[in-house]
């Protein structure tokens, strides 16, 4: 029986075809100060309007001893009251519009973002404007927001998400004594001491017109960007000045830190710094290599197939060349995490503790193999094809298009999809394998594991004994033969470079 129901088109939401990428509107007539505020505009016919107000400041600007002030400042603006309205009044005003205004702080970028239906643009923008330009900086908001930050580090991260804990600690040890050397939310010791005056100082110093890039997307009225520029010209003019952030210097040799806490399984992250960022000559080659080796949350990649597919070791195994926080909650990366310095990272999702050394060896074995042999031709072609199309998935929403456009401005590259297509079309397998051998080579691998019986794990690593593995089902002989190699794979680490860290000490 065939049944057909056709419902007439109701035009509540009409969508545009292809959004236009407009570089800047520097030529627009505005006051002298206003002219210096950069904009990135992605207009289309959508009934939604997306804001991304990007300040080129972040945790790397936290003064020594005040680690966390960049994040507290952003949170005070996004989750605190304005001068005219207490925070509960702002929540009340946003409630019927179902909108919010969120902040994200990374090392070099702080972005405030939100999307509203165009019906509500005027009121929404009025709120956003007063939140950013006339902050209330009330003590009650400060107390709440500071406690939230402390509890996030102490409880949510240190005692509730082993995977993110391992990753963030990995960053912290790679960037020790470097502007990137603390969690974006700060360090606990410094956070406890921060005051509202520290926040005011940070706001004055870094929330300047020179640091701001206004990003707007969607169906806003024609004159709207001009109005936003004029309003934000009220910020102090400032100067954009950032000295080049150097690559971190690592003590030679492998280092393994084992975070001990009461937990069922063992989370593992590995990584080391790379000298390649988006826009660099070898970026696309490395992006392709990382996608082949460990495309995020995809069963279509090499590591996943070896560790989970063939062996059932865990839930997934991935690789990255750019910072990708909250990967357990999202499938595509958040934009506006632009950094001058990045690491190559391997994420091994939690394994049963008795398989922890085997899993770590397997990761090292596969990484060495990639480094030594590069990727095969067939994999190169198919991964390139994947990335050419996948860029459309990454920029599906107007908010994502806007975010990527801002990042492209930061990295000095064309529109992301066009850039990726252009770069990928020029690539050869030889380019990729040369880039792998040049940039993904290290003697200084850093490894973080989170587990229950840390000292036993440490001894198991240092003993050099094979870490055998058993399976609940028979395995093909090729896998068993490979297991023999992995079980005894040398872990080239000195005794003093394998340390146990009690969870209570992380982020202090």
């Amino acid at each position, binding site marked *: *029986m*065939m*049944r*057909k*129901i056709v*419902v007439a*088109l*109701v*035009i*509540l*939401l009409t969508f*545009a075809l*292809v959004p236009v990428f407009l570089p800047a509107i520097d030529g627009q007539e505005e006051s002298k100060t206003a002219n210096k505020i950069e904009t990135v505009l992605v207009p289309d016919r*959508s*009934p*939604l309007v997306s804001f991304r107000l990007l300040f080129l400041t972040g945790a790397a600007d936290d003064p020594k001893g005040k680690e966390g002030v960049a994040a507290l400042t952003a949170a005070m603006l996004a989750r605190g009251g304005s001068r005219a309205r207490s925070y*509960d009044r702002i*929540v*009340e005003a946003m*409630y*019927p*519009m*179902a*909108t919010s205004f969120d902040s994200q702080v990374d090392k070099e970028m702080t972005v405030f973002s939100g*999307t509203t*239906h165009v019906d*509500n643009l005027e009121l929404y923008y009025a709120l956003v404007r007063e939140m950013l330009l006339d902050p209330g900086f009330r003590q009650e908001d400060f*107390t709440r927001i500071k*406690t*939230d930050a402390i*509890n996030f580090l102490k*409880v949510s991260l240190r*005692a*509730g*998400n*082993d*995977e993110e804990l391992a990753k963030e600690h990995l960053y912290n040890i790679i960037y020790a004594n470097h502007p990137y050397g603390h969690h974006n939310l700060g360090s606990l010791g410094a956070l406890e001491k921060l005051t509202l005056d520290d926040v005011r100082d940070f706001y004055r110093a870094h929330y300047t017109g020179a640091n701001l890039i206004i990003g707007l997307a969607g169906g806003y009225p024609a004159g709207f960007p001009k109005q936003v520029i004029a309003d934000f010209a009220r910020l102090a003019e400032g100067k954009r000045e950032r000295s080049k952030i150097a690559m971190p210097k690592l003590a030679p040799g492998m280092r393994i830190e084992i975070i001990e806490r*009461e*937990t069922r*399984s063992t989370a593992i992250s590995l990584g080391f710094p790379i000298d390649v960022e988006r826009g660099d000559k070898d970026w696309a080659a490395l992006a392709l290599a990382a996608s082949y080796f460990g495309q995020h949350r995809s069963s*279509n990649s090499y590591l996943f197939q070896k560790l*989970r*597919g*063939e062996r*059932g*070791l*865990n*839930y997934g195994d991935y690789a990255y060349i750019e910072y990708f926080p909250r990967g357990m909650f999202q499938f595509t990366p958040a934009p506006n995490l632009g950094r001058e310095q990045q690491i190559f990272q391997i994420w091994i999702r*939690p394994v049963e503790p008795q398989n922890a050394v085997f899993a770590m060896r397997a990761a090292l074995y596969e990484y060495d193999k990639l480094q030594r042999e590069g990727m095969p031709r067939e994999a190169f072609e198919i991964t390139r*094809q*994947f990335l050419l*199309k*996948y860029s459309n*998935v990454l920029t*599906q*929403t*107007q*908010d994502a298009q806007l975010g990527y456009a801002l990042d492209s401005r930061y990295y000095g590259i064309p529109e992301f999809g066009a850039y990726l297509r252009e770069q990928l079309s020029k690539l050869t397998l030889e380019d990729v394998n040369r880039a792998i051998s040049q940039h993904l080579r290290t003697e200084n691998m850093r490894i973080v594991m989170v587990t229950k019986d840390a000292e036993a794990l440490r001894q198991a690593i240092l003993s050099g004994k094979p870490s055998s593995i058993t399976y*609940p089902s028979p395995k093909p002989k090729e896998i068993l033969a490979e297991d023999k190699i992995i079980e005894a794979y040398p872990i080239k680490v000195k005794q003093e470079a394998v340390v146990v860290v009690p969870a*209570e000490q992380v982020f202090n």
Partner: protein
Amino acid sequence: MKTFLLIVFLLWLSMAAAAQTRAKQEQKVFPYAYTIDDLPNGLRLVTVPTDYPNLVAQYIVVSTGSRNEVEPGKSGYAHLFEHMMFRGSQNYTPEEQDAILKRAGASSNAYTSDDRTVYHETFAKEDLDEIIKMEADRFLRLKYSPDVYRTETQAVLGEYNKNSANPISGLYEKLRETAFGKHTYEHTTMGFLKDIKDMPNQYDYSLEFYRRYYRPEYTTILFVGDVTRERALKLVKQYFGEWQRGNYSPKLPVEPEQKEPRTAHVEWPSPTLPRLAIAFRGPAYSDQEKDKAALDLLAAIAFGENSDLYQRLVLKEQKVDALEISFDNQIDPELFTVFVRVKDLKGVDDVRDQILVTFKRYTKELIPQEKLDATRSRLRYRTALAMNSSDAIANALAPFIALRRTPETINQLFALYQRITPEDIRAVASRYFVDDHRTIVTLAHDSEAKRTVNKQGEHR
């Protein structure tokens, strides 16, 4: 004269505003034209063309979830099955499946919940043919060996492990187990740990599960994006046309009425902040009966960010740093639950009492009309804001497709919201927020918290 003109103008303005409001109310919340096609075997196709270029979101919704796991010892199989669907079929090895998705630049995954299992891919439109063909093969001709099966059960255990670090999963497991005694909502979608550990021994049962539920009458294929009905229908008929209808329907145990308030406590092995879940037995999803819709509105008003309680506990007294409601649209009666994280163990009793007082309050008080209107507006805009790509539209539709197999149910639900009055809400609240239908679960590191829990019996 001027005054007269002003009055006329104001009158016109208010009329225009009223007309606009009416127009807005008449606009459907799900604004896209869609088509529904039913195949003779019971499979349904829903096609929603959009203006978003190049991409197609394909969501295959199986109305089977952990709710269907009726046999003791067999929890977690709907979810395990979601995993098995990626392990090859008669005409495709997993490697071939992967290669096809990779060439299509697809974002591909699947998820399982109480009531549904959803397989979704978003990809370039030119690859539609090849992907449907491959999908049909795994739905019609799934094939995996006992060895592959056992390996995958270990990945499922890995998934349980990665979730287990989070206290919320412990709290949620305990809540389900305490609030339900007979119905399958007693276990979470992951299943009981003991059942997960037994999965490697249950290869034959896994095949039985497939034979029962991976059938056209349980399945709806949803396409959203740069696609036409003609193309989608032709391909679905071609590749899914021969799928055989099944004949199994599970005998779901009916949960008896709860006759006493229940409490439970989770002693968490590592340091954490105390958490509290307060749940009342609620209704099932309906786009006709007012109960669920009335409580949806109340959930936001009583416990949402703009509620008195939230503002007091989170913003003013700052005793709580997370206050969330969980009250999904489910096939069978679901719990209306408030989850909180309390900043200090000493504050747990007071927070619990304030939440209980709030539940009581709305069984007596009428909600002001303007709060109700603001909440309706919020739900409407939230839906509009969420549908910002073809994939997002499909993702928003999938739960409703699992429940009623048509997008129209969203419009009916919102029409129902429109009809709810403050009196309805009060009447529904007093029927559902009854002490004997309540379950409170606490979680804390310290054993001190246990004493708090034991006192809860007194609090009626």
